[in-house]
């Protein structure tokens, strides 16, 4: 072994150990938001943040079905009761079962702060006339079937502020009820809604919480007769995150195993030597280790999807070893083969890297990781092939077996010339298909990027409909430099919304000021309350000609005095109640600015709402239609992916032009690639399928990967005795690449599936088309 070989082995060994050390300390993440790009506008950033950490992200929706209604109700009660005891994990558990749940903790808070919270507290209400009207209304209520409900609190609250507040809360739609708990309208499933303390994206916590729920359900099943057939299905952002993670884990381990086995089988079949198989996998393994280590160093964490993408590296990086092994003829040494194939190999790697580099400029963190991983992986794999593999090979190494198919393949390639016209016609046909494609090429739904399977999304939607959860499509965002200003602006908007609701343009809305009015409003309400003596005098006059006992309302006068004396309601007071959670989602501090969010429900005429908001001319306020926003987001992502693909392709062509220095040779490489891209696009859009961003990225990688085969074909001197071996190595390498990407297309995650399928088709077509384009024909 030469000194140089020994040096290469030592450096390689040290590098592998270092990579291993880095990987051991790497944090792996499954947070799918890495594939939701950084958002361009502040409003959109708020929305994305809300999705990730807001109250919505902490919701777990549960459906119990598969048993008669009374059994389901009993299960729901038992499950909810068990979960309610777990205050550390659950902020709230609701199943409509007020009988056992008792009043929520915020009820006491509402009661104590009713005079600063109620919008009905005005000076007019506490005049003699106002009080008299309130008392008349109370008499009406007492003389109804609800009398027992209001009787208890009447002496303290004759103006009914607590009823106003509870009415506001109850304003939100309630699910149907049966046997004391929430049910879907058809009575087929009992519904439970839990709110976790931690945000749903905290996957480790979420997994634990889901396990707690499952255990509680199993306990409930055991204690209730005939409950064995019932099942509990969960949905919600956190549940999805956990499912996605486990799916990702499953996909990645399964697919990498299958890809490794298939590639190994092909190599073993071709070379009939376990030793060569191991050697062929050395550059792959080295590349994968280096790729993971590089991503870990660059980002501080490695995304699960990036690991999944490693499957493709198995198919791709093995190519380099295949070129080396197959193209080394008996009687020659690998050291002699390398200088011959090195220029082409070098250019091929360079072109691939150009393609993957485009991904580095993506605003999806996930794509940047994929790019960095692949670039590092390919560089290391080719370097190991160039400098380490020869050191590991015996000097008289040669593979006779691999050349067995070579003559036959060469004949095929020579005959391929006849296919030029059919190929051109096929491409022309593809162009026609694309030109006449109806309804646009692009997937318009942002949820197409979502890793959540369609069936899960459907279950989630139906559960939300059952529960009457607001479909948050319309929002009003009020931004201001300070908390109080944001609240004040929210109050001005709320007044406009109240008017719209009266006109029936709006079903209702939720605003942060329902839970925390601005200090100015709180003070104004307290100022509307007369001092005790004055209130007593007015009340006495209002009580004339009513049947109420004279001293009945002494507690009311005391409560009003206490309300005036106690400090204003602030954020800190709300801590520990579900109101705090609600407020946190509706009033957000971001980069030193405050944003109040008002979510609208039952909007019948969005244009009029927008116009009314405009007319109010409250500064910092905008009306947001989430559907439009998400469409715009998708538009931006797509535009970016398209630009990256185009720029990447242009750079690749430029690189080829510089290296090959001949328009004809460049054309011979680029034409098959272009044909492959066109055909692949046509195939993907067959049957009115739409292209996703992932398909687009896949097309870029098709160019990056497919160009290698075109380069080798183009550089081939067909009179050379090595020609058969080159063709054999190309076919073998191509098969391995197709296996890598093809296997990836079986992944359930759209990003892996989309890229895998596109590149598998594209790489195969690149090989076939470049064989056709460069085919010398049968004559020598």
């Amino acid at each position, binding site marked *: 072994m030469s000194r140089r070989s020994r040096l290469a082995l030592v450096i390689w060994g040290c590098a592998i150990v270092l990579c291993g050390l880095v990987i051991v300390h790497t944090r792996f993440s499954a947070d799918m938001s890495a594939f939701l790009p950084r958002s361009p506008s502040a409003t959109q950033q708020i929305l994305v943040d809300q999705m990730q950490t807001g109250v919505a992200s902490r919701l777990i929706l549960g459906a119990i079905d598969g048993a008669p209604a009374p059994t389901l109700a009993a299960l729901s009660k038992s499950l909810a009761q068990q979960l309610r005891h777990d205050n550390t994990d659950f902020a709230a558990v609701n199943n*409509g079962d007020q009988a056992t749940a008792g009043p929520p903790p915020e009820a006491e808070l509402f009661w104590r702060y009713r005079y600063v919270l109620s919008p009905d507290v005005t000076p007019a209400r506490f005049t003699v006339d106002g009080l008299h009207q309130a008392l008349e209304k109370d008499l009406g209520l*007492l*003389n*109804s*079937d609800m*009398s*027992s409900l209001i009787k208890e609190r009447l002496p303290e609250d004759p103006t009914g502020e607590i009823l106003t507040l509870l009415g506001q809360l109850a304003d939100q739609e309630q699910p149907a*009820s049966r046997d004391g708990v929430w049910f879907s309208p058809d009575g087929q499933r009992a519904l439970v809604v839990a709110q976790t303390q931690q945000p749903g994206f905290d996957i480790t916590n979420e997994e634990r919480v889901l396990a707690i729920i499952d255990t509680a359900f199993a306990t409930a099943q055991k204690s209730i007769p005939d409950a064995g057939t019932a099942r509990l299905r969960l949905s919600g952002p956190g549940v999805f995150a956990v499912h996605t993670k486990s799916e990702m884990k499953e996909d990645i381990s399964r697919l990498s195993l299958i890809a490794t086995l298939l590639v190994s089988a092909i190599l073993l079949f071709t070379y009939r030597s376990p030793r060569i198989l191991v050697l062929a996998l050395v550059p792959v393994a080295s590349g994968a280790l280096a790729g993971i280590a590089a991503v870990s160093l660059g980002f501080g964490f490695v995304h699960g999807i990036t690991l999944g993408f490693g499957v493709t590296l198995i198919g791709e990086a093995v190519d380099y070893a295949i070129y080396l092994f197959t193209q080394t003829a008996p009687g020659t040494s690998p050291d002699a083969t390398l200088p011959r194939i090195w220029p082409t190999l070098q250019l091929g790697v360079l072109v691939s890297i150009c393609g993957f580099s485009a991904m580095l400029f993506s605003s999806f963190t996930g794509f940047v990781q994929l790019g960095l991983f692949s670039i590092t992986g390919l560089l290391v794999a080719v370097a190991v092939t160039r400098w380490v593999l020869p050191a590991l090979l015996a000097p008289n190494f040669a593979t006779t077996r691999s050349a067995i198919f070579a003559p036959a393949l060469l004949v095929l390639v020579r005959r391929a010339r006849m296919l030029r016209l059919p190929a051109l016609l096929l491409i022309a046909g593809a162009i026609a298909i694309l030109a006449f494609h109806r309804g646009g090429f692009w997937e318009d739904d942002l949820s197409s990027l979502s890793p959540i399977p369609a069936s899960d999304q459907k279950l989630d939607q139906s559960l939300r409909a059952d529960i009457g959860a607001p479909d948050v499509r319309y929002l009003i965002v009020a931004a201001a430099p300070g908390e109080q200003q944001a609240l004040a602006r929210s109050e001005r908007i709320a007044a406009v919304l109240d008017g719209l609701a009266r006109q029936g343009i709006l079903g209702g809305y939720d605003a942060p000021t329902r839970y925390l009015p601005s200090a100015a409003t709180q003070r104004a309400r307290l100022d509307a309350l007369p001092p005790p003596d004055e209130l007593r005098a007015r009340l006495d006059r209002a009580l004339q000609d009513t049947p*109420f006992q004279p001293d*009945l309302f002494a507690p009311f006068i005391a409560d009003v005095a206490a309300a005036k004396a106690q400090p204003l309601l602030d954020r800190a007071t709300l801590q520990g109640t579900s109101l705090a959670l609600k407020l946190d989602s509706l009033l957000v501090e971001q980069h030193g600015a405050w944003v109040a969010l008002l979510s609208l429900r039952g909007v019948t005429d969005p244009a009029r709402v927008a116009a009314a908001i405009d007319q109010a001319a409250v500064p910092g306020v905008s009306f947001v239609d989430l559907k439009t926003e998400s469409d715009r987001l998708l538009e931006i992502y797509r535009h970016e992916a398209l630009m990256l693909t185009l720029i990447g392709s242009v750079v690749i062509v430029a690189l080829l032009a510089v290296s090959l220095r001949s328009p004809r040779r460049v054309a011979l490489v680029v034409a098959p690639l272009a044909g492959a891209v066109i055909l692949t696009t046509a195939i993907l859009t067959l049957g009115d399928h739409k292209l996703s961003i992932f398909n687009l990225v896949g097309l870029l990688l098709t160019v990056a990967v497919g160009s290698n085969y075109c380069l080798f074909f183009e550089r081939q001197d067909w009179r050379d005795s090595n020609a058969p071996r080159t063709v054999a190595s190309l076919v073998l390498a191509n098969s391995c690449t197709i296996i890598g990407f093809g296997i990836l297309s079986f992944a359930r995650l759209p990003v892996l599936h989309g890229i895998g399928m596109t590149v598998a088709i594209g790489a195969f077509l690149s090989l076939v088309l470049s064989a056709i384009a460069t085919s010398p024909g049968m004559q020598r």
Partner: protein
Amino acid sequence: MAGLGLVAPRGLAQSAAAPFDLGQLMARFAAVKSASAQFTERRYLRMLKAPLNDSGVLIYMAPDKLEKNTLQPQPETLTIDGDTLTIDSQGKSQTLSLSAYPQLGGFIEGLRATLAGDIATLQTIYATELTGSLDNWQLVLQPRDPKMQDIVRAIYIAGENNRITRVQTVERDGDRTDMTILPAGP
């Protein structure tokens, strides 16, 4: 006749004459598929110096729908249908689950179960005590549910044959409501 408060053992009393048992009474109610009658109500509340009056129409439809239609002094409709309780008052409609609000159900559930002749439900929700004869009976219902007990002490129902004439609800705090049911008008 209250003094003759005998509860006959099951199976002994065959004739319509006293003594009789709850099963027999309930069987008579069960035979009635629908009924409607006018009512007047008088509420005696401690917080008021004088009682409150109201009146309206009661409508019953077998097996489990009861509508209390108050017409005076202000219109209000309370409907219980299965487990669903709906209150329509002053243009607003509220739907609640009866089992979620035992304090509301306490008053009306006894009346409905009696009208339905549903002895099982009646005895699940209340401890029952029947006195009198078929021509003039008194049924005392005492809630079993502690939440219901918080509000309702007892419901006294009086009737003649399969017709209820009077329902008196006594709350725990001593407040009470007397409902008089008139025979169906012409």
